């Protein structure tokens, strides 16, 4: 507020006179928006319109119970946490199964002691709940941050104090300052502008970056100072109930015994931002969850990764197997009970209970089925879910902590907002990206221009730089003898023989924001010496005058900044300033420009009277000012899209059309945004007759006012004379050139961009309207097929809903993982619809981030997120799940085999405690360390070889071949473990002392073998051993021995008492069996991986070897070549343009002359 005093004076301008189209259509509610606003007055008070707001009157307002401005997005609170979280846990089939078994374990049916069933379940569920709790806590913290933002609130007696957002109540008067977010939905009362307008950026609501104008009612304009709210008491707002519609509002404002109708123009929505306006006063209408933006937020659908869904399928398969072997077992039991039990006198069959009653074998069989289901439950890895959750939390922690994804500027790290989808990041096939603000900075850089058919500006666009670079690095791959064409100079500057220089890297050091133009012919007044200097002068004047911006003088430095509606305009003004045409002052009717080189006596200030301003909108695609210069000449300056301008050129205005068109094409190919500039000289009489008509149209009331205005505008915007064209670069975000990498990730996959502006003719470009047709049922598959054929698809001017629809179409159509990335609230639909939603944080608001699964602070981090973390997480989780199934099959089936030798009685050969510990302690940590720490290749290599990422989308590590392979391995291991031990411990003595192995000895030996086999297996699976893996793998094996020692000292252990020290330890056969079985279990896998590596190596194998042999250091050319190859062959977006550029350059080289080729790559 420091400069508000000075700023305010400057801001006092009635803009309403200048504006034509956007606003100020009288406040009759003629908004043109769909919605009930036109018949507002009638509806207020009726059903759905019950809200009453007593402005600035907390006493009266308290009688109405509206929620406070407190928001909460958490899933649980302290009371609901336990019941709700437990319910969530048991919605999982596997957990429900384990719950049932735990309950049944309290009955005699259970083959184990109850504690061995309940303890692991409690552990597993407890851990999952802990994780849920922590995640919810994080959400809570995030909410608190928002709730604790501060805003100035009227306390009474004209005094404003800062309060937290959450304390805001309906009816409060707040003062929001420039660049602050509105804390709630407000009614605009007044602003720093005299006529009560303010500029609002609704980026968070609809993603639009251009500023929207809001305007208060006339009647509240006097409330322009803090003190004036002393007596502002009796105003009442009656309006609609909370609803999610952003563009409608219906209500009445009762003030001083008058009723005024309210429409959306007076409403400032929560999460939009005040721009270009020092401050506003407003009354809170909707608070917290009542606000439109909160009403709009839908619960983000819980997403599950492809791998997890497949895992569920496998679990169902295992359930089927479980049912099957349980059935076999219970049939076997029933048969034996019927036929054999009566003869087994030692079981006293005559004293049977119903569990094993030979006279009722069917009943006993059914009871036994339950027993068997519990007994073989070890086939279903109980700890799988919780281990995966734990691993994912840790993986997410690594993502959050990654220092390479920390943005110094915003201070944000990457955030895995849900850890469910880590591995899905490694399988992304299609990326859908919002363009503005996501791919590009939405910050324009004046780079080139074409004036009077001459192209100025030697700076290179990012596309050209990348093309040059790529050509240089891939030089040896090209078939042209490049030595005589390229001169390589430290990779920084690449000179083309023809004399065009591409400066690469840090050579470009534009000191001025928004201005990267380099060409001495125009600078320092040199333009005066150019042949067409008069046209150039006009060109500069158009730049300096044809706009709606406001200059802001920095009082400290005297430099001028511009508040422009669009960044392009800002860039033009900066450019004009640099050329010597400094726009420094705007008054109600005039624009003042300081011109440096137009008169011999140095700097002159010139005033141009603005007569009319026909501003830009997306339909007109042009903007016009009509002004009178100091000589009294009336000029019309028009800038707009080239096609629009070219259509309106006069016959004598087409002098430069051909050249300009060529330049425009060049600029377009270089990825620049272009506008054509033109002018027209008007006769006084011609103007005044037109102005009369225009005035009539402007003041007309009725639905066709807009049409009228357009028609009249069209009349004057004719017979133009082309001056030239501008080319600005919408800077890619730092590292967004990595788009090429993204596609590389993909190497042939799709990249669908949902853009706002079509800026280059590569790819299929489709705009919102066409899209509406394309998305209809009968068309959409054709559209999809077309889109798949194209390397990239650009959809421009699409609504958030359409974005979501396209996303769904792509997701369902291709059936592959889609990732949507965006930064604004308009991307929320897309982010939620895609398999993975990524939000860009730190730029604007939190909407996209809140809806997203991952948030990063810059687009360029997406590469690391996918290529490094995604790749790792995918492999980790895939291997982990496979291994889990392997180990539980290997273990679970031995229990089944033993049944066949124990009369299917449900007796386990293992001690209960062994079984309890198997999943929870003895085999859990190594697999978790696999899931958390495994790296096939280092992060640098992941980034250098994005092609490695292809392993994910191709799903090489979790396809059925691999899953079944692991299951087969488990089956084999179970057979080996059981039958080898059975034969070894058949009936003979196991010691020199003649002792025989009893069941405990056999069981313990078998269990030892299992522990060794599965832990050796995971050691073979891992390719990356830090001390943690070593500790966990070897520690697990040691833990087993320590456990059996400790367990052997307690008498609870039954027959396992002192088993290691007294029975097995001194028996060589025990150790011999362990060694044999472990080897036998792992040799097939060893054969498999050895064979695969030698005959059919995967990419990461080869790269591992290259690294291992340090070939990358020895043979750097090869290494570099492979790296560049790994990221080549991309035909998408940015890269497509780069390729086209390369082709073009090559083409030129061949033809030795300028040529114009438009390469469409699709």
């Amino acid at each position, binding site marked *: 507020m420091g400069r508000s005093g000075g700023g305010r004076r400057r801001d006092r301008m009635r803009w309403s006179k200048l504006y034509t189209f956007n606003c100020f259509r009288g406040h009759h509610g003629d908004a043109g928006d769909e919605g009930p606003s036109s018949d507002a007055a009638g509806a207020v008070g009726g059903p759905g319109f019950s809200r009453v707001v007593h402005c600035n009157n907390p006493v009266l307002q308290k009688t109405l119970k509206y929620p406070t401005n407190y928001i909460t997005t958490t899933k649980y609170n302290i009371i609901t946490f336990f019941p709700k979280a437990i319910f969530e846990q048991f919605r999982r089939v596997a957990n429900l199964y384990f719950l049932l078994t735990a309950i049944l374990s309290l009955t005699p049916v259970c083959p184990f002691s109850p504690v061995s069933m309940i303890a692991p379940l409690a552990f597993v569920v407890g851990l999952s709940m802990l994780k849920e709790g922590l995640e919810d806590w994080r959400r809570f913290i995030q909410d608190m941050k928002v709730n604790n933002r501060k805003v100035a609130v009227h306390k009474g007696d004209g005094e404003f104090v800062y309060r937290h957002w959450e304390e805001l109540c309906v009816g409060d008067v707040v003062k929001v300052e420039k660049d602050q977010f509105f804390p709630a939905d407000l009614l605009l009362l007044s602003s720093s502008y005299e006529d009560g307008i303010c500029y609002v950026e609704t980026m968070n609501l609809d993603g639009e970056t251009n500023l929207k104008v809001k305007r208060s009612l006339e009647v509240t304009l006097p409330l322009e100072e803090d003190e004036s709210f002393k007596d502002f008491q009796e105003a009442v707002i009656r309006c609609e109930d909370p609803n999610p519609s952003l563009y409608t509002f219906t209500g009445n404002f009762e003030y001083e015994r008058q009723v005024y109708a309210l429409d959306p123009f007076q409403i400032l929505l929560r999460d939009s931002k005040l721009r270009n306006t020092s401050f506003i006063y407003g009354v809170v209408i909707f608070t917290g969850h009542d606000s439109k933006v909160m009403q709009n937020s839908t619960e983000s659908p819980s997403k599950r990764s492809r791998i997890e869904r497949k895992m569920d399928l496998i679990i169902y398969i295992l359930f089927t197997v479980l049912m099957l072997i349980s059935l076999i077992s219970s049939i076997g039991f029933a048969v034996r009970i019927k036929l054999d039990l009566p003869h087994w006198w030692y*079981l006293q069959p005559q004293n049977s209970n119903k569990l094993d009653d030979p006279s009722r074998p069917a009943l006993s069989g059914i009871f036994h089925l339950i027993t068997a289901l519990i007994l073989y439950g070890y086939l279903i890895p109980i700890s799988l879910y919780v281990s995966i959750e734990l691993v994912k939390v840790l993986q997410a922690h690594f993502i959050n902590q990654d220092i390479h994804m920390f943005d110094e500027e915003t*201070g944000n790290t990457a955030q895995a907002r849900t850890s469910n989808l880590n591995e899905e990041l490694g399988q992304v096939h299609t990326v859908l990206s919002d363009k503005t603000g996501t791919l590009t900075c939405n910050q324009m850089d004046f780079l080139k221009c074409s004036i009077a058919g001459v192209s100025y500006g030697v700076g290179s666009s990012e596309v050209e730089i990348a093309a040059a670079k790529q050509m240089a690095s891939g030089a040896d791959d090209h078939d042209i003898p490049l030595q005589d064409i390229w001169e390589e100079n430290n990779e920084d500057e690449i000179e083309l023989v023809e004399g065009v220089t591409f400066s690469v890297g840090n050579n470009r050091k534009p000191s001025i924001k928004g201005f990267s133009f380099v060409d001495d012919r125009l600078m320092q007044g040199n333009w005066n010496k150019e042949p067409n200097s008069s046209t150039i002068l006009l060109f500069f004047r158009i730049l300096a005058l044809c706009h709606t911006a406001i200059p802001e003088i920095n009082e400290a430095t005297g430099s001028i900044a511009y508040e422009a509606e669009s960044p392009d305009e800002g860039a033009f003004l900066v450019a004009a300033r640099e050329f010597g045409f400094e726009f420094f002052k705007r008054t109600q009717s005039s624009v003042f420009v300081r011109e440096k080189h137009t008169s011999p006596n140095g700097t002159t200030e010139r005033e141009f009277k603005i007569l009319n301003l026909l501003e830009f909108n997306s339909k007109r695609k042009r903007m016009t000012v009509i002004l009178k210069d100091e000589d009294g000449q009336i000029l019309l300056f028009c800038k707009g899209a080239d096609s629009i301008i070219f259509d309106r050129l006069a016959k004598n205005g087409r002098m430069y059309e051909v050249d300009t068109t060529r330049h425009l094409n060049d600029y377009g190919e270089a990825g620049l945004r272009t506008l054509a500039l033109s002018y027209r000289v008007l006769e006084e009489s011609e103007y005044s007759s037109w102005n009369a008509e225009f005035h009539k149209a402007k003041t007309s009331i009725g639905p066709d006012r807009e049409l009228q205005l357009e028609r009249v505008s069209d009349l004057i915007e004719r017979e133009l004379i082309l001056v030239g064209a501008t080319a600005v670069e919408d800077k890619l975000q730092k590292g967004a050139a990595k788009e090429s990498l993204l596609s590389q990730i993909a190497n042939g996959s799709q990249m669908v961009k949902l853009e706002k502006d079509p800026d280059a003719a590569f790819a299929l470009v489709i705009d919102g309207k066409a899209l509406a047709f394309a998305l209809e049922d009968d068309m959409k598959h054709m559209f999809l097929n077309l889109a798949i054929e194209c390397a990239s698809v650009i959809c421009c001017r699409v609504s958030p809903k359409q974005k979501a629809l396209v996303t769904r179409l792509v997701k369902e159509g291709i059936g592959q993982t889609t990732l949507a990335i965006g930064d604004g609230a308009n991307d929320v639909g897309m982010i939620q619809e895609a398999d993975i939603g990524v939000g860009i944080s730190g730029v604007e608001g939190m909407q996209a981030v809140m809806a997203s699964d991952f948030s990063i602070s810059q687009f360029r981090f997406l590469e690391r997120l996918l290529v490094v973390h995604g790749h790792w997480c995918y492999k980790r989780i895939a291997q982990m799940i496979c291994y889990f199934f392997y180990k539980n099959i290997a273990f679970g089936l031995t229990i089944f085999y033993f049944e066949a030798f*124990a009369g299917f009685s449900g007796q386990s050969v293992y001690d209960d405690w062994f079984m309890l510990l198997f999943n929870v302690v003895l085999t859990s940590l190594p697999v978790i360390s696999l899931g958390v720490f495994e790296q096939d290749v280092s992060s640098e290599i992941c980034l250098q070889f994005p092609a490695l990422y292809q392993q994910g989308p191709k799903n090489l590590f979790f396809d059925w071949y691999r899953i079944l392979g692991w299951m087969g391995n488990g089956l084999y291991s179970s057979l080996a473990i059981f039958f080898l031990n059975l034969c070894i411990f058949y009936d003979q003595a196991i010691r020199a002392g003649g002792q*025989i192995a*009893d069941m405990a000895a056999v069981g313990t030996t078998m269990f030892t073998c299992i522990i060794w086999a599965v832990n050796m297996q995971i050691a073979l699976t891992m390719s990356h051993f830090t001390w943690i893996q070593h500790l966990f793998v070897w520690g697990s094996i040691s833990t087993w021995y320590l456990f059996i020692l400790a367990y052997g000292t307690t008498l609870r252990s039954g027959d396992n008492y002192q088993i290691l020290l007294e029975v097995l330890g001194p028996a060589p056969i025990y150790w*011999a069996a362990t060694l044999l079985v472990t*080897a036998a279990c792992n040799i097939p896998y060893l054969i498999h991986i050895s064979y695969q590596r030698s005959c059919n190596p995967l990419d990461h194998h080869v790269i591992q070897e290259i690294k291992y042999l340090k070939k990358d250091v020895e043979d750097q050319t090869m290494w570099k070549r492979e790296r560049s190859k790994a990221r080549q062959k991309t035909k998408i977006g940015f890269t497509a343009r780069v390729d086209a550029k390369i082709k073009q350059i090559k083409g030129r080289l061949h033809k030795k002359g300028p040529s114009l080729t438009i390469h469409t790559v699709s």
Partner: protein
Amino acid sequence: MDSHAAGSSSGGSGDGGAPPRRNSRKPKYSKFTQQELPACKPILTPKWVVLVFLIVGVIFVPIGIVSLRASQQVVEIVDRYDDACVPAANENDKLAYIKNQTIPKTCNRTLTVTKDMKQPIFVYYQLDNFYQNHRRYVKSRNDGQLRDKSKASDTSNCDPEATVDGKPIIPCGLIAWSLFNDTYNLILNNKNLTVDKKDISWKSDREHKFGSHVFPSNFQKGRLQGGKILNSSIPLSEHEDLIVWMRTAALPTFRKLYGRIYVDLKVNDTITVQLENNYNTYSFGGKKKLVLSTTTWLGGKNDFLGLAYLTVGGLCFFLAFAFTLLYLIKPRKLGDNNYLSWNRPPVGRR
């Protein structure tokens, strides 16, 4: 080597001049959080593959040979007597024979020593088709009662052999109740061979699990008579047959140690066994065998372990050979960049 080069061109122009703030949120660098912990990354090079298989082979084959030799040094005499001991008159109804208390159960068997046997020689009985591992059977015991005098009346889990006339059975449960009760008396050259029945059980069992102050009571007093009757004046810890028996076997075919003979036997010695054929295996068709066996360091006679080791070892030698061949016939240079997927013709890889 800078993979970010393509994106670095935006230079300073994009900087809004915002000073770096909130850097306190910058993650602290640690090798752990950045996943840069030093790690060993073993790679299965051909050299290693062959070496591993060779090493396994080199270790396993000798173990196999030693184990097989050990097993073959064991001399084992097995004599099945369940059928043979049934008098011809009862041939058709063996069950009636065994249940009839009045028929004398004594039976004489003659064993011929096939090879010299060095003492100690272990005497086992072997039962067949006897499900000591049946859940109903395994559960039917109470360890506390066996150990602790004060828990004498604790017969939980012992059903259906827990109490008789309301009084607790010690030792309770089916296992104890069905205690094997055949007895053997070995005679060599008309001289009784002393069968040492001491210390045939595990020491810890005797000392910790079967109480020296716990005496059998109400045992085999029920309506049904199971197996052996225990002398109720001897504490459980000294009923070693019971202790051995109560170590339930893993498989339906099992041996249990009966005792030891500390006499060397010569080849062609004949041993006469006077046995009391009391135990009923006839109802379920189980076999009964008497086994005399020596042991080695590895235990009794079982060629399997040795053979398995030889098989695995042999297989590993074969694999080492096969992989060597593979590498010779179809060599792949390590780290050969031609094997990278983008350098390979796009044939249908998995």
